[in-house]
């Protein structure tokens, strides 16, 4: 099953996915799409953990559980983030990140 694919490939995928997520975070103008890019970032990290666990240290399940916890936390985070986004929608009538800059300098 995993014999032929070297670990490095997984790392390449996860790093590219990670940086795509960051690119999304920095450029997308809509708050929810920023949330999506964060999910991408967390997913990249999960791949990393799982790959390491499987390839390097199969004797324990630390990477596996780390990913599990990350998924749970991502869920919690998404919930609170979306609650706040809805709240912003009520206050600002739009969820464009650029008009959320009343406080500056």
């Amino acid at each position: 099953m995993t014999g032929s694919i070297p670990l490095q490939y997984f790392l390449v995928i996860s790093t590219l996915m990670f940086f795509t997520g960051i690119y999304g975070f920095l450029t997308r103008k809509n708050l929810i799409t920023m949330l999506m890019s964060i999910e991408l970032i967390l997913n990249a990290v999960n791949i990393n953990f799982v790959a390491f666990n499987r390839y390097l240290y199969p004797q324990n399940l630390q990477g596996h559980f780390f990913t599990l916890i990350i998924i749970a936390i991502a869920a919690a985070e998404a919930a609170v983030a979306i609650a706040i986004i809805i709240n912003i929608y009520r206050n600002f009538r739009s969820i464009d990140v650029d008009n959320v800059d009343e406080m500056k300098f």
Partner: protein
Amino acid sequence: MNSEVMFYLLAGMILVFSVLTVTSRKILRAAVYLLFVLISTAAIYFMLEYTFLAAVQLTVYAGGIVVLIIFSVLLTSHISEKAIMADRRQSLMSALAVVAGALLTLFTILRFTFTPSAEPAHTSTVTDVGNALISYDRNGFALPFEVISILLLAALIGAIIVARKEKDGIVLMKNKNLSK
């Protein structure tokens, strides 16, 4: 042999769809692309024989979070609305930073020689996962399991009080600009 093909296929799907999520004009379409990315990562877990994890990924991520996102998209903007794109300067600068970062990290990571541990592999069946979840000793994860419950409770309550709509609208309007 076919697992290699499967891996390349999945890797391609992940990369393509994540780039599409980040660059597509329509928000709803971006959400769908995100769904595809999550499903392909779950597939990768299957490949790596972490079946329990793949299942959790599918249900929580694909099922829960993406659905939540789609709901919030619908709540906050009608379907056909086109997301306004960042101005050229900002996207150019971020692209530059991201690419440089990616190259730097990749270059550093790939130069590191990973040393797999010598101990015998441990099967990762659901029973092992269960045992690890409730065991207290060295590699047991009972404590995180308990603490995550508090986190979810707190997140739940937080989300409710933030998103709750005041029953009587007046209170909302009156204090709106109190601190302006």
